């Protein structure tokens, strides 16, 4: 399997996890933010695998630098960076409802999934050999604990 296909398969598996987490959206929203970031990461790695000047990135720092310093990926970077920051807040700021006060569950869906991740997907498809293989985040049902 080509490197792009492996990363797209990982991105799609991550989306299944997002879908599962959204079944209990209100209690899982920090993890939804985290997995959304990891889906974006695999999409970016799939794009980089087609870029001879970049290739595989060894860590978060490397990946972000390549995104930020390559003009053609500016749109991806503009949506990847806020998603990355939100996922750091979700992972590291533990405490009573810190993340939920920062980004309520409905905002995680509207801002992180349907805006930033969606924009990353749309922009990345221009650089993929098989863009149709990437599952769209818009296909995921939006959960709501109160339903």
């Amino acid at each position: 399997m080509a490197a792009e296909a492996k990363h797209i398969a990982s991105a799609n598996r991550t989306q299944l996890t997002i879908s599962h987490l959204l079944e209990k959206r209100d209690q899982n929203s920090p993890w939804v933010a985290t997995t959304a970031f990891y889906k974006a990461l695999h999409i970016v790695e799939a794009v980089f695998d087609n870029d001879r000047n970049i290739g595989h990135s060894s860590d978060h720092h490397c990946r972000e630098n390549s995104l930020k310093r390559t003009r053609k990926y500016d749109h991806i970077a503009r949506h990847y960076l806020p998603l990355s920051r939100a996922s750091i807040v979700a992972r590291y700021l533990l405490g009573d409802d810190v993340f939920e006060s920062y980004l309520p569950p409905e905002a995680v869906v509207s801002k992180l999934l349907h805006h930033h991740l969606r924009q990353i997907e749309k922009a990345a498809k221009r650089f993929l050999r098989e863009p149709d293989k990437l599952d769209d985040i818009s296909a995921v049902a939006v959960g709501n604990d109160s339903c």
Partner: protein
Amino acid sequence: MSQVDTTASRPTVVELHFEDKEGRVRIVPPNRDLMTIPVAMAIEACRAFDQQVVFKDQFDMLVDCLGRWINGHREQIGDAYLTIRDAGLLFLVVHRATSYDDAFESALTDLDLEIANDDDYSLINLSVLGLPSVDEQSVHTFLSNKMALRYQMDGGRS
């Protein structure tokens, strides 16, 4: 070959040539703790020192640049730090509010991209992170024990 120009009227020039594969350099520091190293290693050391000087200049400019940025957003910022994280620097900004601020997040992204693409900061690897208003202990988990500058909200730094 490595040569010493001993012309009296001009400062002494020591040439370390990359083709001098077998050459060695003897260094006599003030404490007389002599070092003898290959020419190639001395060339690398000079190159590293040169980069270090450039990095220091770029770092000083960055500290001032971030200070100006903070000043322009001081209504929204409770605290700000420049610290070390992974293989680079982290500009950590603590928002006054506990909730997500779209405009502020956009400003952080603009700043991050601007610095990454500015040739004046070519040796700087900077990440930018915004936190909601949280207790000091939580903020400190993001700060390096080795280096953390805290900006004073009156425009200085400590």
